[in-house]
């Protein structure tokens, strides 16, 4: 008797538990958006836009189930993308292999200098030019892959979150040799932790050569007069310095010049850059309650965190065992430190830095700062304060579990509210990728798409300052930007983007022969989520009716032109790396008519700029 009773009780508990969890997913308040709107909304916010037929699929599956799936990307198969990524071998190489495979010009010059050559022969110049060209190729692979992933991956939320964190932990591809460390940064530092624990992500970034070089921590060493750990560094002591200087006096002028150059580059003392941005941009936020003294103490704690120079050709592995992160005890300031009220004992090494990362990731301001940024990206340019606070509470409760914080945000009533719906403006990256996805595009393995994003004002990995690209629309929308977005729509609709022929959009072939009004209805449904005012509909409809225009055949031929132009893996000159790739196909665009025109108008319309 008792057992049955407890069984019933247990069953009741399980049932109640299930009901509770169901309610917590769908929210205790009825959502303001229809099922179809919710599907469009998640595809715009938690993905880079809907592919043909995808809204229907999400509606059929149920939006909550889709969200659940996306929150566990490791369980989402992504075979198509994996095949595409095989086309980018450079991205799987380690940074030291990249440096050997695609050496920067400086390396060849140093090699020549060491050999005693002083004049550049013609062969040398050509070799330098080839090096530069190959450098551009691997950089453009990097940029092209970022676009390709966003366009093709099934793990869309993971892509959105990787984009978010790459921006939060911004690095600039144009600085020094940072580009060699970018594949590692994107693939093995940010991506694996994008929905993981914030402390793990922070730690991976803090040790990444990309960040250590970008914010100069790699050359931050203890100020002279501070105690360091072991090693001492022969040349830094008084006796050592005297011996080294005597040696230098005996060198000839050319050798002395080289030594002096190396000495100029040797770090001289504490560098506060990373420490400051760690507090200001990565964790607490500028008003998070830290002082300039905290910045200095954090910088001291992080001395010694550096980059191991990659193995040179012909030499064995370095003492630390290869490339990447290295902790140099002789550069570490081993004095006691006081960081945000916490005392760090003297005499410790790498633990100082690790403890600082623990302290800042658990600071209450960090939970608020990160949550606010996430709510801004996912919900609204004016993040609702209550939602930010609930997300921060989740952050604190789960010790920085990003997945759970995102879950709190994207299952909230605010997320699915009418004011949030289509309230955000797409960034250049988002508008380009969503246009390609709307056409059912496959990956563009050339640099072309990435260069389009650059033309719209967001060269990938090209933001110089550490604060990253803005998360709000007002920063993106200005006179020139709108023009470029309109022109983007026309470029895409002319079928010029490799991997995105118009016939790749399933309805295209049949629809091209249909009357204009039917084309307009279909395009509005597909590209604008069915949302268009009567005036908009009329404006789009008032073009040439393809049944009457001889231009029909011409318009369909446009997408074959792109293929005929051979824009496959062949190198498009002037790749998209760094600032301002000036090509990008905005010249000599054909006049669009018929269905391509309707598509171009839709992609350039104000509605398409929103997500």
């Amino acid at each position, binding site marked *: 008797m008792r057992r049955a009773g407890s069984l019933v009780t247990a069953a009741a508990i399980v049932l109640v538990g299930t009901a509770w969890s169901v309610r917590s997913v769908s929210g205790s308040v009825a959502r303001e958006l229809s099922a179809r709107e919710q599907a469009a909304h998640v595809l715009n916010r938690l993905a880079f836009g809907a592919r043909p037929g995808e809204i229907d699929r999400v509606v059929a599956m149920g939006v909550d189930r889709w969200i659940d799936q996306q929150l566990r990307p490791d369980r989402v198969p992504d075979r198509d993308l994996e095949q595409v990524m095989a086309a980018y071998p450079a991205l799987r190489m380690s940074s030291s292999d990249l440096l050997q495979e695609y050496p920067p010009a400086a390396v060849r*010059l140093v090699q*020549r*200098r060491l050999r005693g050559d*002083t004049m*550049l022969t013609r062969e040398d110049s050509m070799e330098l030019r080839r090096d530069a060209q190959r450098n551009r190729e691997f950089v453009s692979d990097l940029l092209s892959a970022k676009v390709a992933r966003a366009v093709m991956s099934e793990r869309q939320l993971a892509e959105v979150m990787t984009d978010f964190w790459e921006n939060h932990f911004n690095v*600039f591809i*144009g*600085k*020094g040799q940072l580009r060699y460390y970018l594949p590692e940064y994107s693939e093995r530092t940010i991506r694996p932790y994008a929905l993981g624990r914030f402390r793990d992500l922070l730690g991976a970034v803090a040790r990444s050569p990309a960040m250590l070089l970008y914010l100069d921590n790699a050359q931050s060493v203890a100020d002279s007069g501070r105690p360091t750990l072991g090693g001492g560094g022969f040349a830094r002591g008084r006796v050592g310095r005297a011996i080294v200087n005597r040696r230098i006096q005996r060198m000839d002028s*050319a050798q002395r*010049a*080289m030594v*002096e*150059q190396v000495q*100029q580059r040797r770090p001289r003392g504490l560098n506060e*850059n990373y420490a*400051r*941005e760690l507090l200001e941009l990565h964790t607490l936020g*500028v008003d998070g309650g830290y002082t300039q003294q905290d910045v200095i103490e954090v910088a001291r704690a992080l001395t010694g965190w550096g980059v191991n120079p990659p193995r040179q050709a012909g030499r064995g592995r370095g003492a630390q065992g290869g490339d990447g992160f290295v902790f140099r005890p002789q550069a570490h300031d081993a004095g006691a430190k006081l960081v945000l009220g916490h005392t760090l004992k003297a005499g410790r090494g790498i633990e100082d830095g690790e403890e600082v990362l623990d302290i800042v990731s658990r600071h209450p301001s960090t939970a608020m700062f990160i949550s606010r940024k996430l709510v801004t990206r996912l919900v609204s340019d004016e993040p609702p304060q209550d939602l930010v606070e609930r997300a921060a509470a989740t952050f604190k409760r789960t010790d920085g579990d990003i997945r759970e914080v995102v879950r709190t945000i994207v299952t909230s009533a605010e997320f699915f509210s009418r004011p949030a719906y289509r309230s955000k*403006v797409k960034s250049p990256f988002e508008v380009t990728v969503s246009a390609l996805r709307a056409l059912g595009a496959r990956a563009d393995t050339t640099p072309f798409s990435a260069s389009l994003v*650059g*033309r719209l*004002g967001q060269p990938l990995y090209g933001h*110089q*300052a550490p*604060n990253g690209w803005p998360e709000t*629309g*007002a920063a993106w*929308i*200005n*006179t*020139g*930007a*709108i*023009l470029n977005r*309109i*022109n983007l729509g*026309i*470029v895409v609709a002319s079928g010029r983007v490799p991997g995105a022929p118009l016939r790749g959009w399933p309805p295209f072939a049949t629809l091209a022969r249909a009357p204009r009004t039917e084309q307009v209805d279909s395009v509005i449904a597909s590209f604008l989520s069915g949302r268009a*005012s009567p*005036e*908009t509909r009329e*404006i*789009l409809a008032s*073009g040439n009716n393809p049944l009457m225009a001889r231009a029909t055949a011409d318009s369909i031929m446009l997408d074959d032109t792109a293929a005929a132009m051979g824009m496959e893996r062949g190198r498009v000159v002037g790749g998209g790396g760094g*600032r*301002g*790739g*000036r090509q990008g196909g*905005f010249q000599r*665009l054909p*006049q*669009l008519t018929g269905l391509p025109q309707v598509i*171009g*108008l839709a992609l*350039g319309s*104000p*509605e398409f*700029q*929103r997500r």
Partner: protein
Amino acid sequence: MHRRVFVKDGALALVTMGLSPSFLRRATFGARLEATRKGKILVCLFQRGAADGLNMIIPHGERAYYASRPNIAIPRPRSGANEAAIDLDGFFGLHPALESFERLYRDGLLAPIQAVGSPSATRSHFDAQDYMESGTPDRKSTQDGWLNRYLAVKGTCQECAAAEASPFRAVSMTPQTPRILEGPSATVAMNSLGEFTVRGAGDSAERLEALYRTGEADLVHGAGREMFEAVKLLQSANPQRYQPENGADYPRSQFGQRLREIAQLIKSGVGIEVAFADVGGWDTHVNQGASTGQLAARLTDFSRSIAALVTDLGDRMNDVVILSMSEFGRMVRQNGNGGTDHGHAGAMFVIGGAVRGGKVHGTWPGLEREQLYEGRDLALTTDFRAVFADILTKHLGASNLAPVFPGYDGKAFSVFR
């Protein structure tokens, strides 16, 4: 001309967009027209890559210059020698490739400045450009550029209050907005005038414009409407074949053509106040050449383009200042590859009708070893902010520069009469 009110959040409140017929008639080319806008104009040119100031404004009176650069120094001025420096004042000379600047110097329009630059010790291109464009050396947290802060702070002459409303008040002839113009004040970046239009035009453009006129007055619609107005404004003043005046001959290089378009914008009266362009190729670590070679080729294009702009603008140069800058200079001693490595102080040129040209400005610190910065570079005697502040106040008429160069209170400096 009626005024357009541009509300900052992007929602454009059009008072009237009255382009009166007489305005259209006046905005044509070849005709001598009084500027519809009387505003002062600044053209900022950035030589990216650390241009070698010592081989641009040559201290031919310095023994150490020749001792340090056995293969790449420019010979002392000597009559009849094409490869020698063009003497300016008995101590300094111009690189022969800058010969287009000689006339400007003699006419009092050109003020070279030596030993000017950033106090920051950085020798990173990226950081140094960042500091020179943000206007805050050694501070990386600055999010906007000093020219953008100026736009927020300032005012030109009284009768040009209308200039503030123009979408073309600040134009950068670059594919993206440069750091120096980043910030909340509206600016336009365009690769070329011809591209500032809806491509593949025909009725697509009209339809798109109609799309942006219907619908809610929001950020996107507002910016869209404004864009179409700007395109029309530009097209009304931008016929297909622009004819430079006064025989100005722009080089066919990208830099030359960009300056030509800046001239077009200035003359068309669309309300430009600040123009920006940059030019690369200055990072001459290897084989920079001397009187001829890599650097000389860059300097030829550089000076001919600027000289063409000055010629083309003619009398308008009274209201225009052209300023060139570079993130730092290059080392005094040549390196082992026939070039020079990164240095410290560099050189600038200021050109304009109101400028006290015909003399080399700045304080020359000397090139003997003990006079060098860190024993290797030209020492800094004028902070770049002093030069920028001088131009912003004396030329463009800004009164309060504290927000533009926060934390700077350097000594006064002026190239103006």
